[in-house]
């Protein structure tokens, strides 16, 4: 039943929780009230306690997860989560989890949407009405009879949202709903949330995410957590205008147009307003550039010199298809030079991961030849693997030794390094990733962020000449991502290694990659520097449903110049401010 706008629907009183394995509480002394109809974003770095807080709200803690809970959570005015099992709270509060793969139980869209209401024991007519309405609300009517295996990530997440909507809870929690999705799927889900905001103004939404890029324009209120406590609580404009550096220091990912807005406010003290929408920031930039107060130019590092040595990877007319499957790659030829940072982008299913696996020797081409460091991957696989470091999307897949130190030592030992050299590399790697204190711990006792750093350390300790990164942004906050990129830059600088990265994150590509390849329909569509491709091939990118980084739309043709600056750091390092120009803005 919709509540009045001022009614408190979530009341958290002195809440603290400690996991059995935790040495400190995951959340402490949380006092928070959320009103009906509010759209709240709870953000913070990895390990700040956001997800723990979220699962306290719907009763998972303390009913299904062990630990010490102090304090109270009251939902929907009178339901104490300590006194009700989870299923009794379900009709008041629902939850959409981060990874769509991890929350869809049924094999069919309609069955999944109906799952919750069927669990609650509703009458059939009621079930039908709710399910049909929910499927329509998320725009999946044409896919209602699909198997979930035939859906994209965004569609799966919409199914997860719909299955909660069918139950019609007053409060809906969404835990990083777009974190594991590609940009197209993310836009789909954000669009659905925007729609729901309009269609269900009395419903309370709580989004938990360390990346606020997608949800910033929807939020009424942002709550920032750090080390288990609430450190900031206010409107988006208030927090971003007055506490930008605090948010940045905490590693909260913010979109480039917000960074640009903050920079403009700093560069032009007279600028009082703070815009949240990209189009408004662009409009402001146009005013400053057309008045002559601001000039953007490309910095010298934007120009990348041509390579001179032999390539480290060579693909010669390579084609690949799985047995009895479709062609994944067709007649692909390219070289990768020493010291290059190559980003491979493309829609899902275009062969990006297959390309990486071919490079590493995990797969062999159906046609053509692949050489890594001059060695044919089909002939001397062991030699190839000795030179390749592969950082998988899920770091847990590649950890298997008994301690952190042994894990890192495995690679150098396999390369027949002396024990002295092994110890040296282990110490260096531990220092690089900040895991010196954990060297005797079992890898799986580390937190997710630590395990990611460990996986990176195992790869770096082997000093590969070719480093493969598979979707490195998944589950990472900004600080962790920056650290990882710093490590890879170190590898390039000190060992002339080449880095190949598969990603959907165009901002990352523009900041770090020296070259990018766009795959489409089993072939290479574009191959060039990010500057060239983002600046001059936007129409081709649009045709294959790839969006350039937000800096491109912010700086494209700014000030009448026929160029764009795809990278925020380049934009501000090459910017010239003329505050003395006396023109009104």
């Amino acid at each position: 039943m919709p509540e009045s706008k001022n009614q408190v629907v979530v009341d958290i009183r002195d809440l603290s929780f400690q996991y059995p394995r935790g040495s400190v509480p995951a959340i402490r002394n949380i006092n928070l009230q959320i009103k009906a109809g509010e759209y709240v974003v709870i953000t913070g770095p990895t390990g700040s306690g956001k997800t723990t807080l979220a699962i306290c709200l719907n009763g998972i803690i303390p009913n299904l997860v062990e630990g010490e809970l102090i304090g109270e959570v009251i939902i929907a005015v009178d339901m104490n989560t300590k006194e009700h099992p989870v299923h009794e709270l379900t009709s008041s509060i629902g939850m959409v989890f981060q990874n769509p793969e991890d929350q869809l139980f049924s094999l069919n869209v309609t069955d999944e949407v109906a799952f919750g209401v069927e669990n609650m024991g509703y009458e059939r007519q009621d079930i039908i009405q709710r399910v049909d309405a929910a499927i329509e609300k998320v725009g999946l009517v044409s896919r209602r009879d699909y198997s979930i295996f035939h859906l994209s990530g965004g569609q799966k997440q919409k199914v997860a949202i719909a299955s909660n909507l069918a139950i019609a809870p007053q409060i809906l929690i969404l835990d990083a709903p777009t974190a594991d999705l590609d940009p197209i799927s993310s836009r789909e889900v954000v669009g659905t949330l925007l729609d729901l905001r309009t269609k269900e103004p009395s419903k309370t939404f709580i989004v938990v995410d360390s990346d606020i890029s997608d949800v910033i324009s929807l939020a009424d209120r942002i709550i920032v957590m750090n080390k288990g406590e609430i450190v900031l609580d206010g409107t988006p404009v208030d927090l971003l205008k007055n506490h930008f550096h605090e948010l940045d220091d905490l590693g909260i990912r913010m979109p480039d147009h917000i960074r640009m807005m903050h920079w403009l406010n700093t560069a032009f003290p007279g600028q009082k307003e703070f815009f949240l929408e990209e189009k408004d920031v662009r409009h402001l930039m146009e005013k400053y550039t057309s008045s002559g107060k601001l000039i953007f130019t490309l910095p010298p590092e934007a120009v990348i010199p041509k390579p001179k040595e032999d390539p480290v990877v060579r693909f010669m007319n390579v084609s690949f298809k799985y047995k009895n499957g479709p062609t994944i790659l067709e007649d692909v030829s390219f070289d990768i030079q020493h010291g290059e940072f190559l980003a491979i982008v493309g829609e899902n299913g275009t062969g990006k991961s297959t390309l990486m696996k071919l490079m590493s020797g995990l797969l062999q081409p159906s046609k053509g030849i692949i050489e890594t460091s001059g060695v044919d991957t089909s002939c001397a696989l062991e030699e190839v693997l000795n030179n390749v470091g592969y950082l998988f999307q899920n770091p847990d897949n590649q950890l298997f030794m008994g301690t952190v130190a042994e894990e890192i030592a495995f690679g150098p030992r396999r390369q027949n390094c002396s024990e002295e050299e092994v110890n040296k590399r282990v110490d260096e790697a531990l220092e690089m990733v900040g895991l010196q204190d954990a060297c005797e711990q079992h890898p799986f006792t580390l937190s997710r962020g630590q395990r990611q750093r460990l996986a990176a350390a195992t790869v770096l300790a082997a000093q590969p000449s070719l480093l493969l990164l598979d979707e490195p942004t998944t589950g990472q906050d900004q600080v962790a991502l920056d650290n990882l990129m710093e490590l890879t830059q170190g590898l390039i600088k000190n060992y002339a290694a080449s880095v190949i990265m598969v990603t959907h994150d165009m901002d990352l590509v523009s900041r770090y990659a020296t070259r990018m390849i766009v795959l489409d329909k089993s072939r290479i569509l574009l191959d060039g520097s990010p500057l060239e491709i983002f600046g001059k091939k936007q129409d081709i990118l649009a045709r294959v449903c790839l969006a350039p980084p937000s800096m491109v739309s912010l700086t494209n043709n700014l000030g009448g110049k026929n160029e764009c600056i795809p990278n925020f750091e380049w934009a501000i390092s090459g910017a010239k401010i003329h505050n003395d120009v006396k023109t009104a803005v």
Partner: protein
Amino acid sequence: MASPIEFFSNVEKDSWVHRMDPRVKILMVLCLASLPLLFSDPLYLLGWFVLFLVLIMSAKIDIKPIMILFYGGLVMVFVYIMYGTFLAYPEETLVYAKFIWRWGPLVATDIGFYNGLILGSRLLILLMPIVLIIATSEPSMLAKGFMKLGMPITISFILLATLRFLPLVFEVATRVMEAQRVRGLNHKTFKERISNFKFLLLPLFINTLRQSRTLGLAVESKGFGARQWKEFYRDFAMTKTDWIILVILLIFVAAMLYIRFGLNLGWSAIYRP
């Protein structure tokens, strides 16, 4: 391992078997997968085989995606034939053998071969009605059918969960082995699998459990704990055709039992040691 997509590719077809009420289908398969055990005469087994073949063809089932079900059965048939052929029968039964070949302790006989072939084939025949139910039923409808026959909700949930998780576990195992391979741990040859088994175990268990526990929490968040499955969006009810099939089935079962035990037909001597 067949992916669920290929495996259930026959489910979307339309035939009288597809349209059957899941409860009747379950009862039919339970009967048809048990009755052949009462028979060992090759003529009668041939009759069962033909009957099942007709049922499978009338259900428009494309065998190719589900051939995996028969591979294990075929190997077992071979095992039955080998044991049957070389089994050392008591001397008194050897009088029935038209061919005897001895080599040390091994005694190959034609009756042994004949026995192994019949029993092995019967095993394969028993798999055919299973194909009928798996290939023509949506798992969720099957689970609902079992529930309406009195199976507890929890067990129905387990049936559905196995379909959801076996592909997932297989995928995790593949990814972990792939990641280990890149780091230099192979799981290709039998020797490598044994020596590197200890490295596979923990990551495989932990990765699978971590992924699946979130799904468990998601399922609980949608009220599963209430265990109130009583009405469904996609439901079914007995039609006139279902009742007719049920009656025919009961008559058929009664007839088979009468033939076997009333008339004492269908069972030729199986020579056991």
